[in-house]
């Protein structure tokens, strides 16, 4: 493929690779540097906006997580961030720390390298999506439904005789995993930590789509727009939005399974259902004939001609019902992805836009059609789609999966000739799980749209010539994009 030539297979790294603080060939002057770390399947971006005069640049950390990296590796990564931010030593300052959504591949670093964050960094503002504000009861309700779903799924995986229907569920569960590779902290705790740091500095913000654009302290001519997570509960839910999902309280349910359906599944999986398992059995106990039952002899003859007939073994349904768990796992994953904080950075003078979508899926993308911003000096409100139109840098959603980049009302709107796309993705990890990342058709569309300026964080690939010409520089540890 033209965008990324394979380099000779390197030896697997067990620690974060050594790399200079600035990539060779970096321009001396730039308006922003976007640094994507090459740490496996996961997002970690450092945005550097130079300030006027001798003032230190504004540093913004956007997510810091990996799906499958140990604590030592992630500590190495965060140490590298520290050296970049504070080249002369001492405490580094992260003017803004933003987390897009509650998934391990975006947050694990805040747990794994907690020590470094505690001792070597001062935080400025902490930005989170409005869906993380647990002081609101309705949001707490969503989160507790999710916890229950995850618990149910874990119980289901522990059931005896688990079938192929559950293959993939355990992989999916990693995203909302209980433990990080190093310790016992949950992904939710990483968010709690960020909230704590934010309230310590007195600048913890829950961002809402369409709110007034945010100015960056000391950086002239840059406005930050918030596009998502959507306020519309239906769009918030949808990885596939159908008219049928239009019901008032859809937000409290998990996908199509529903709260009670979850209880029933939980009961089947052997999770304690408040001592109420009997309620989820379809019939009274007297009707049930198990293979151990004394009445089994009554049905044995019938079954030997039907269900137990070896010639008709292909019709048995022992594990088909378990696909409900697969659906639940998908619902859980996509619901969380859709709470992604979506940010657009606009350079006012030139109109250029950098777009970071987290792992936003279809519903989140669709909601932007109705988002607009009151901008000082503009008679009419600015529609969010106008920002997409002016996008020159796009952080591809959900590691390049097919439904995290909308076609119409998404990629098709991005028409800047110099468009560059970054995909934080480690091919080997995705392949090992047999995940369709990057999705073929989407990748092809991106290559076409960007004129081959698509860059993967995969350590085995180097940016192509077209990307280099557009200001992309790479080392073993990160890839930089410069807007000069």
């Amino acid at each position, binding site marked *: 493929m033209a965008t990324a030539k394979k380099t000779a297979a390197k030896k697997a790294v067990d620690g974060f690779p050594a790399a200079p603080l600035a990539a060779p060939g970096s321009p001396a002057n730039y308006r922003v540097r976007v640094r994507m770390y090459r740490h496996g399947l996961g997002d970690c971006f450092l945005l550097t906006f130079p300030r006027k005069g001798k003032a230190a640049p504004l540093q913004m950390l956007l997510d810091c997580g990996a799906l499958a990296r140990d604590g030592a590796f992630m500590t190495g990564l965060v140490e590298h961030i520290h050296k970049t931010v504070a080249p002369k030593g001492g405490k580094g300052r992260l003017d803004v720390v933003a987390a897009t959504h509650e998934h391990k591949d975006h947050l694990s670093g805040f747990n794994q390298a907690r020590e470094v964050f505690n001792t070597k960094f001062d935080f400025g503002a902490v930005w989170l999506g409005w869906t993380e504000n647990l002081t609101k009861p309705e949001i707490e309700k969503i989160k507790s439904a999710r916890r229950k779903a995850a618990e149910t799924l874990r119980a289901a995986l522990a059931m005896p005789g688990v079938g192929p229907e559950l293959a993939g569920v355990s992989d999916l569960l990693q995203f909302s995993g209980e433990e990080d590779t190093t310790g016992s902290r949950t992904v939710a705790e990483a968010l709690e930590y960020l909230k704590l740091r934010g309230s310590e500095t007195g600048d913890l913000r829950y961002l809402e789509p369409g709110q007034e654009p945010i100015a960056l302290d000391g950086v002239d001519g840059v406005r930050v727009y918030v596009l998502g997570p959507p306020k519309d509960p239906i769009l918030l839910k949808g990885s596939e939005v159908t008219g049928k999902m239009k019901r008032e309280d859809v937000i409290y349910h998990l996908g199509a399974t529903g709260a009670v*359906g979850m209880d029933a599944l939980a009961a089947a999986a052997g999770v304690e259902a408040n001592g109420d398992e009997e309620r989820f059995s379809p019939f009274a106990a007297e009707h049930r004939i198990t293979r151990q*039952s004394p009445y089994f002899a009554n049905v044995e003859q019938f079954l030997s001609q039907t*269900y137990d007939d070896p010639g008709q073994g292909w019709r048995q349904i022992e594990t088909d019902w378990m696909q409900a768990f697969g659906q639940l796992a998908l619902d859980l994953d996509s619901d969380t992805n859709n709470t992604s904080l979506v940010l657009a950075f606009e350079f006012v003078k030139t109109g250029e836009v950098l777009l970071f979508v987290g792992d936003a899926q279809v519903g989140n993308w669709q909601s932007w059609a109705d988002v607009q911003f009151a901008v000082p000096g503009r008679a009419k409100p600015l529609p969010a789609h106008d920002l997409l139109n002016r996008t020159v840098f796009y952080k591809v959603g959900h590691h390049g999966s097919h439904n995290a980049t909308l*076609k119409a009302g998404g990629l098709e709107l991005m028409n800047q000739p110099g468009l560059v796309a970054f995909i934080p993705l480690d091919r080997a990890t995705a392949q090992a799980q047999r995940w369709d990342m990057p999705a073929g058709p989407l990748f092809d569309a991106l290559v076409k749209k960007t004129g081959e300026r698509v860059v993967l964080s995969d350590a085995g690939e180097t940016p192509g010539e077209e990307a280099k010409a557009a200001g992309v520089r790479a080392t073993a540890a990160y890839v930089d994009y410069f807007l000069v």
Partner: protein
Amino acid sequence: MADSSLVHLASQPPAPARRLLRGFAFDPTLATKLETALVSEILYKVPWEANLEAGPRGEYFEVVDYDPASQCFYAPVDLNAPHVLAQNGLRPSEGNPQFHQQMVYAVAMTTIDRFERALGRKAFWTDRLVTAAGKRAESEFVQRLRIYPHALRMANAYYSRAKGSVLFGYFPATEDLSSGQFPGGMVFTCLSHDVIAHETTHALLDGFHEHFLEATNPDVLAFHEAFADMVALFQHFTFPEVLRHQIARTRGDLRSENLLAQLAAQVGLARGTHGALRDAIGRFDAETGRWVRHTPDPTELDRTTQVHARGAILVAAVFDAFLSIYQDRSRDLLRLASNGTGVLAQGDLHPDLVNRLAQEAAKAAGHVLNMCIRALDYCPPVDLTFGEYLRALITADMDLMQEDEHHYRVAFIEAFRRRGIYPRDVRTLSEDSLRWARPGEAQDGAPGETEQMLAMFIESIGLREQVDGLRYLTTRVEIWRKTREIRAALHTAIQGQVAKAELLQRLTGLALAEFQAPPNVRVRRDGHPVFTVQAVREARRLGEDGRMLNQLFITLLQKEQVEHEGNEHVIRSGSTLVLDLDTLRVSYVIGKGLNDQKRILRTIAYQEGENGTRSLAATYLADRGEPFAALHHTGA
């Protein structure tokens, strides 16, 4: 000493034609409302199966009640037990698994009976493909569709071709009190007439056209859903008590909200959707909290890609045609009952009028459903579009009813037009241009040459005799075997006669003659291109003019490998030949040829586009081989 084993035939009662079984009219919800309690239960009159075993296990179905999530079986019901026979089956009860088995059997048998009566021949399930090690895949006869009434713990039910089964789920109703359902109460999809009829129809349609599960354009899967819904809907009109009740309630105006036009009310409500799962004439508006009628919008089809939503447009079109027909048929009754004004006086309708209106509605619904089922014979075997289905409907009806006395065809054309459903390549929307074309003459041949050659061909392979052999067989397995013989004989005949193969090749656009196949079609070592005679179906139907139609439908299929922008694609082409065995003529060739470049590009573009809109499951879980499982999760 007299021999007591001797049967005294004169005193034996004749076998009954029908078995009467009690069941829910729609689903258990009607029984709990005062307004509808009286009509909540009906008698299903299913064909009498002499050899019905416990299960029930008969000629077409076997109900196996295994509940894997609860790890138990429920004892099979014996419908021939005297106590059961004496009271028309078990009393409807949600808490009795044996009644559930009776209910699925009753509705599934009703559905298949409807199907067989419309087609005038036996119905078959899809063959099972068995591949023994190192051998070519062989198809195997599947006598019974297996039904699992309690297979899943979820709000889902689906037909699984891979297991030759229909799996029904059960789930607790939403705890949302405003749904009006008993919160957390158990809801069984196997107690919903609509769900059972819908899934049985999926299985029947799959047995009829097995490639209608391949989404080569946005209509194919949507048609599968729509057709299953249509059968379920029109079966409502065969419940006389409910029909009369609803006609009385709506004062004869079936365009207003009514139970007959709604599908799966309980399943929909229990999932918290505030209305039936699907409604052919309206919907529940979440914003206003009211039921609103659909207004047909010709642009809607273009904007709708989701399978159920797209299917709903076809259902709405067919239902709309039905409503027009019903109105047309009942207009005189309304005038008679209103002193010639056509405007009914206020208050309840006279019971006699209700009865007569109900008769007209039942008659019209029966006709429309027959048309819809018979049209299947006239569909191309692959890549069906809604527009082509309209052509199939019109053609099938024109063959039987030369005069369109009650304007059925006009009603269909109008209803389809109002929803923007058009065939791709007709010049006008008149009956005549919608009717499939007769096979054309060759440009360079003598007049009548094509027709003559075809007649000779049909005669030379003894097609009449072959089909006659089919007619006097009684069991399905015998018919299946004989049909397979005919298919093989046809295949050999086409291959063996070069001139005939060339002629058929010209008509169907497939590659049939040796040494002439394009490079992307697989060719055997002896030079014969690979194709299959997929199906041979016969139909004898009585036309309105008293003439018996004596037809044979043959489908030919062929695959080709196409490369497009570096990707390999397998494209299926095929033709349905409609033969008139009386006149030895090929009446129609309905097909999708190999050389239709536009279609092939359209298919590839569609399939590539589909990759971009599939659900998240596609990223993580790859393909699970149960197309309806995922499809029905959001739409049942």
